[in-house]
């Protein structure tokens, strides 16, 4: 980077230093790529692109709901408490928010709880509608949450079960023996979050290619993430493209 200053200066007129990269069309020295989880557009910190980058996100703690919950929620809780002897040990928290009941379950108990939820006559959650993952990075020590949404067709009720595991020990029992429909959805949660469902018949990647590295939906996995090769040229991932930095 010495070329501009070495230019012969005949008339004694100061010549401004040309910014690096301005003449050749080559990129100026790129700043180090933003660390994972810092958002797009090269923003550091909040990832806020509105022009004001000082916004701090508040993490509200999840609070246990007081009894009575209202609606059918009390019945569901009481029925589960009666039918499941390890209730006190298995259920960490009961949350009622926006008209939805969430039972936070200890991960090692999730399959048992599902079994009771399905088979008990007062509960009868026949259908496991949805299994998905959420990564609460920075908000929870056991940051990987697996969320099960059970539907009772008999009573027309819905209940959410939530089990939290840590990245270091991302194991919890598979519920495929109780709800075979969880098969692909657990594979998706494994693929996207790296949660390992013990006892799953075939826990492989489902949406990403088999040889993919990393779990894309984790919060510390950047958007795009990998360079794309197109006709021999390599296009960097979005967060490392020059126009965004």
């Amino acid at each position, binding site marked *: 980077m010495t070329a501009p200053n070495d230019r012969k200066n005949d008339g004694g007129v100061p010549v401004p230093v040309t910014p690096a990269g301005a003449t050749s069309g080559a990129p100026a020295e790129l700043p180090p790529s933003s660390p994972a989880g810092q958002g797009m557009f090269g923003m550091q910190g909040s990832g*806020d692109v509105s022009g004001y980058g000082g916004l701090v996100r508040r993490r*509200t703690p999840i609070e246990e709901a007081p009894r009575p919950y209202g609606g059918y929620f009390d019945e569901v809780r009481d029925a589960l408490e009666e039918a499941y002897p390890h209730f006190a040990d298995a259920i960490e928290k009961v949350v009622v928010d*926006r008209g939805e009941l969430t039972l936070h379950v200890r991960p090692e108990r999730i399959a048992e709880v599902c079994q009771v939820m399905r088979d008990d006559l007062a509960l009868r959650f026949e259908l*496991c509608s949805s299994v998905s993952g*959420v990564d609460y990075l920075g908000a929870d020590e056991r940051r990987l949450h697996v969320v099960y949404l059970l539907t009772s*067709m008999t009573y*027309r009720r819905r209940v959410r079960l939530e089990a939290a595991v840590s990245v270091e020990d991302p194991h919890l029992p598979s519920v495929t023996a109780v709800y075979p429909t969880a098969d*692909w959805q657990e594979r998706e949660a494994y693929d996207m979050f790296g949660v390992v469902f013990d006892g799953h018949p075939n826990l492989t990647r489902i949406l990403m290619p088999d040889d993919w590295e990393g779990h894309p939906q984790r919060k510390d996995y950047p958007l795009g993430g990998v360079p794309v090769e197109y006709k021999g040229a390599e296009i960097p991932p979005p967060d490392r493209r020059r126009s965004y930095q």
Partner: protein
Amino acid sequence: MTTSNYAAERETTEGRVFTVTGGDWDQVVSGTDPINDERIVVNMGPQHPSTHGVLRLILELEGETVREARSVVGYLHTGIEKNLEYRNWVQGSTFVTRMDYLAPIFNETAYSLAVEKLLGITDDITERATTIRVLMMELNRISSHLVWLATTGMELGAISIMLYGFREREYILDIFETITGLRMNHAYVRPGGVAQDVPDAAIVKIRDFLTMMPKKLKEYEDLLSGQPIWTERTQGVAVLDATACLALGVTGPVLRSAGLGWDLRKTMPYCGYESYEFDVPTHPDGDVWGRYLVRLAEIRESLKLVEQALDRLQPGPVMVADRKIAWPAQLAIGVDGMGNSLEHVAKIMGQSMESLIHHFKLVTEGFRVPPGQVYVGIESPRGELGVHAVSDGGTRPYRVHYREPSFVNLQALPAMAEGGLIADVIAGGASLDPVMGGCDR
């Protein structure tokens, strides 16, 4: 003279290979393994005209009988759920509409209902916006079922129905274009209401459609229902009973064709469906034939719903009154599609600085959504379409997960196909109506 002179054999990775020189067929035949050689593995897809998009099936065949079937998905994975986390809540509509491209209005409505539930404004959505949503969803259900009928017909050898189905679907897409500006990928239903009002021209078109469609449905039935090839290919094929459906999480027309009348519009109503008059068609057999009848009957029910929704349309706003959430501009359809109306642009650029600031903040930053999580399930043409949305209090979704009926229902394919004929794999797979854009997201 030794054997090897005539049929030299050697071991390769593919198995034993004989080099035949003639006159020794007994030895050649005795060298094969009739037990193990009869099973062959066939890769169907990922690019196969009969598999509805890029779905790959691995079939283990014994003659024409399928012994094992495994489906491989993910070829159309586009990371929409991840992308949503990097855009504001309103921009999400533009992403989710591209998931299940045959039912875009359902993706948008489910997403909007979830965001509204997070915001706590479910009750503030105007009557007109809700009615328009119902109207659009039911039209979309008809168009989706028409594509199902068209493609399934084609896959089972009925080319005419393919042309008929796409012809009538085109009419619905035309209506959508009049209302939203786009044939597909509308981003029309948005958190807080819908993007803009329904023009009068569209109402006329829908009325025309309502008078035309029953005759067309009669045509389809005349063409297919009594047709011996159609009945042979569908009756008793790919049977899945209600128990299997529940275990595998299969919902929608496939579950209803197994005799269980589970329809979220009736059982867990949303968008005011409880106040509409319609039936939930079922069929006892749980075969492809039943699914065909159920879908045709659902088109008729949807026509009834569209008519009722049209009658209910009263003038009024189509967006919530809350200016902190509602899109600042009344959008209008121009020659180049949908955009901000000219009056609005004139106002913010020429008259009101505050309006410009307000517009800028809402459009670039978006509104904030209180932290929490919700699940909203609606009845899409393929079954329960669920949205699990999580907010951390910011202007962008923390996590949005789609419970896609195509994805969940496809798990039932091995149960339908194994033990049947290879030709019935096509019929069974088509009867699930998987849309890979939705399945892989």
